[in-house]
């Protein structure tokens, strides 16, 4: 294994980035006496892709990242970089570049000292080392900062040093462990754009861990949504939002109303389901999703985004596809009005463009799901 990386590093010295495929093959991590942190995860990350592990804290995303880095030994499964099995390789033999949540910058070294650390370990010649440090620092917009001490930098600058330090070694895979969580909101948005641009430019395969869905949606090529050590869905940000695989994904990404419902009929392109008290809605049938495996009479779940519902105050008539409820709270945020509506004991969230006429708490409303935006999920 060591030879492989020696070879890889040598070809990389020529300059061009080399893209690596990463395969997590049924990996798991269990600790005695507690539920598994990661339970049989299989992920296939393509060359040059920015792949995000998204989930609430404790879902196993950081453990997975640390297994790829080699800090945690999996209790089962294999990890492959291209065709090389790295499951048992020491962290320093894997050629991954990691950006830590707290940056983990070496406080006794300068900026340049930090960036050159990985190059020293790789025995890069002095001349090459200097040009690569300079390139890496300008890549993250820190030209001329080489001699600074780490404690003289701002949080954002430290974050960039951490990124430069990981990039300068031309890693096979770039690993980012919640790299933006220590930055303030505005800087976080700027930095995520920069990270994405740098990653694309360098063409590096990237595994990104976050619990922030906005971050995941805006940066990723694909997202894996994790809960309790298991993967719920692997898809593009667009699909994760509009075509959530499970009720958990629907609720975790954005806000959603999830109904427990019964399949009453299956038509050529749609599944007809009944929500509670007889309201009938139709969900499209899409291959490889919950709708494809629906059978008449089964109990399933349907997700409706707040913006996929239109609202009529004090309706005169109520259609068979509409839900009637009573407004609990009304929140005016400018662009949209957000209502919480009680519908047979379940609280639904509805958002309506702010310009449309508004309901007040206590009003009876009819809610009409937009056709085509009803989506069937695994319960």
């Amino acid at each position, binding site marked *: 294994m060591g030879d492989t990386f020696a070879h890889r590093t040598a070809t990389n010295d020529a300059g061009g980035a080399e893209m690596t495929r990463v395969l997590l093959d049924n990996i798991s991590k269990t600790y005695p006496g507690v539920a598994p942190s990661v339970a049989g995860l299989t992920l296939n990350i393509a060359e040059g892709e920015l792949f995000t592990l998204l989930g609430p804290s404790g879902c196993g995303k950081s453990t997975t990242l640390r297994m790829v880095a*080699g*800090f945690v030994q999996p209790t089962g499964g294999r990890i492959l970089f291209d065709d090389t099995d790295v499951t048992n390789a020491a*962290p320093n033999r894997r050629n991954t570049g990691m950006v830590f949540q707290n940056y983990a910058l070496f406080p*006794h070294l300068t900026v340049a000292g930090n960036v050159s*650390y990985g190059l020293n*370990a790789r025995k890069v010649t002095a001349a090459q080392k200097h040009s690569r440090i300079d390139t890496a620092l300008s890549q993250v917009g820190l030209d001329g900062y080489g001699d600074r001490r*780490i404690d003289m930098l701002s949080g954002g600058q430290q974050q960039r040093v951490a990124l430069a330090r990981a990039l300068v070694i031309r890693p096979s895979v770039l690993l980012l462990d919640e790299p933006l969580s220590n930055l303030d909101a505005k800087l976080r948005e700027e930095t995520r754009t920069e990270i994405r641009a740098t990653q694309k430019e360098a063409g590096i395969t990237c595994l990104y861990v976050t619990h922030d869905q906005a971050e995941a949606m805006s940066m990723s090529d694909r997202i894996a949504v994790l809960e309790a050590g298991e993967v719920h869905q692997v898809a593009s940000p667009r699909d994760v939002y509009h075509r959530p695989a499970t009720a958990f994904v629907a609720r975790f990404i954005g806000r959603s109303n999830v109904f427990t419902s019964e399949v009453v009929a299956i038509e050529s392109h749609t599944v007809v389901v009944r929500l509670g008290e007889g309201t009938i809605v139709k969900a499209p049938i899409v291959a490889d999703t919950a709708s494809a495996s629906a059978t008449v009479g089964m109990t399933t779940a349907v997700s409706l985004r707040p913006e996929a519902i239109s609202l009529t105050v004090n309706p005169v008539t109520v259609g068979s596809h509409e839900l009637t409820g009573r407004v609990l709270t009304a929140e005016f945020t400018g662009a949209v009005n957000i209502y919480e509506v009680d519908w047979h004991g379940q609280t639904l969230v509805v958002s309506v463009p702010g310009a449309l006429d508004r309901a007040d708490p206590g009003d009876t409303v009819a809610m009409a799901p937009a056709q085509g935006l009803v989506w069937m999920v695994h319960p």
Partner: protein
Amino acid sequence: MTLMQRLSQRRSGLTSSDRFVYWISVPLILVLLVYIVFPMLATAITSAEGGGEAYGGFISGSSGKALGLSVGISLVSVFTTCVIGTGLAVLLTRFDFPGRQVLRIFALLPMALPPLIGAVSFYFLYAESGIIPRFLAAYFGADAAAVSANGVAGVILVHSLTMYPYFYLAVSSALSGSDASLEEASLNLGASRCRMWRTVILPMLTPALVSGALLTFMVSMASFTAPQFYNVQTLTMQIVASRTSGAYSTAAAQSVVLSVVSILFLLIMRWYQNRRVYRSLSKGTPQSLTVIQGFIPRSVAAIGSLIIVVILMAPAATIALLAFTVDGSWTIQILPPEYTLGNFAKIFADPESLHPILVSTQMALLGMVGCVLVGVLAAFVVTRWSGPGKGLLDVMVMIPWALPGTVIGVNLVTAFASPTPFNLGQVLIGSLWILPVAYFVRFLPLVFRSANAALAQIDPSLEEAARNLGADTLRAIRTITVPLMSRGILAGALMAFIQGFGEYVASVVIYPAQFAPVSVEIYNRIYSNEFGTAAAYGTLQMVLIVIVLIIAQRLEKPRGQRGLRQKVATRTALPLPVMNT
């Protein structure tokens, strides 16, 4: 990598760093067994020779009486040091008065006094032939014997004025770390000032008081120099007396009893410190000082501070004064009558007088090297050890801190008297090596603790980052961990050096006849009435200590670097005092 290797790794689920820790713990455990655990066992075995008859007469005989005396003196010492230490701490953390700044500096002076020197100076100050009783007798017609501190009273006086810093440090840290808004809240809710102290401040101080009491008790039990000067037959004195008279199994039995008491207290203290949180968790409002107002109160405070400073400075000043007296000139006068610079000149010019300094320097340096190598290794292993046995390892390293120096001396002499498999065939009695070995054993906990503290401040992700960037475990430790620990290690090493340089209690049991260390030489000079030369050695020692303390304090100041973990815990461990009494 072979299939077998792979399988074994997979099953264990260990990473390479885990395995690294287990590998390097092998030599560490070997060293701890040979130099700490087996010597204790050797003493225990010796004590049982003759069918345990050494224990038979323990309670009824002189050993029992000595134990009672040790416990009694220790209990009284705890009380007096508590009053002095807590009083000073409350005064200096809560009140502002003329003389406060000066008092703050001098409050810790007793810690800079080498133990033997401390006992000597108190003897020359307060014993029947001391400066103060003679002065009172000459000018106020007092009976010198009545106003002097002799025997048990003398020992308690030495303990009170040298051990109060344990209480002072613990209580000031608790008081200054407390949140003023808690007290304000109590007053705001209608409590009187007195009630507030009883219900808010006192409960908060309890952990500090308990720790201070446990510590003082342990140190008093281990005390040897003060009883020796005042000829009080405590258990430590009995141990040395038994060994000198050749009653080895009796000495061993007495050592075992004292060890059991000391280790018990070590365990109680560990348990108690792990149980309690010392500081209130809220960030809160900082404490403000109550300013003492009015001319008369301020004058009283100023004069009081002055008196306390004089009392605290007197021992060091006495030694410094004695260092310039002509040997043998001071007989019945209040102060020595003749002065000279010759004592210092003699020490450096006369090879025979210089010899103890050379011996102590070299032995202390050797001991220090051992402390650093093993202490840093131990800190690393204990911090990184995952799995059971961590606490046991920690206790194994810390035991020598709890053991009285006398007992360590006896343990080593017993264990390294003849070649056995347990001491790896080493015979150290009569060899120069026994001194550095003793210093190594006694001061290993010092270096271990400071290395541990330094290590705890380093974020583990720094080492991970190094590994991720391509460094193997050794390279990561060499280029990241060790440089970040270096200040802590250096501070601990310096402390180990000065402590070794002045070590007396264990040295007096084990030193080879031709190689007396400085402390033993001081005792011998006093014994042969060469007070001036003895005090000159002592003065050099004090100067050395002050220099080292200043350097150590600078080293321990945080560098203000990010990336070093912020103070994680609120549990403030007590500073590790040296039980070198």
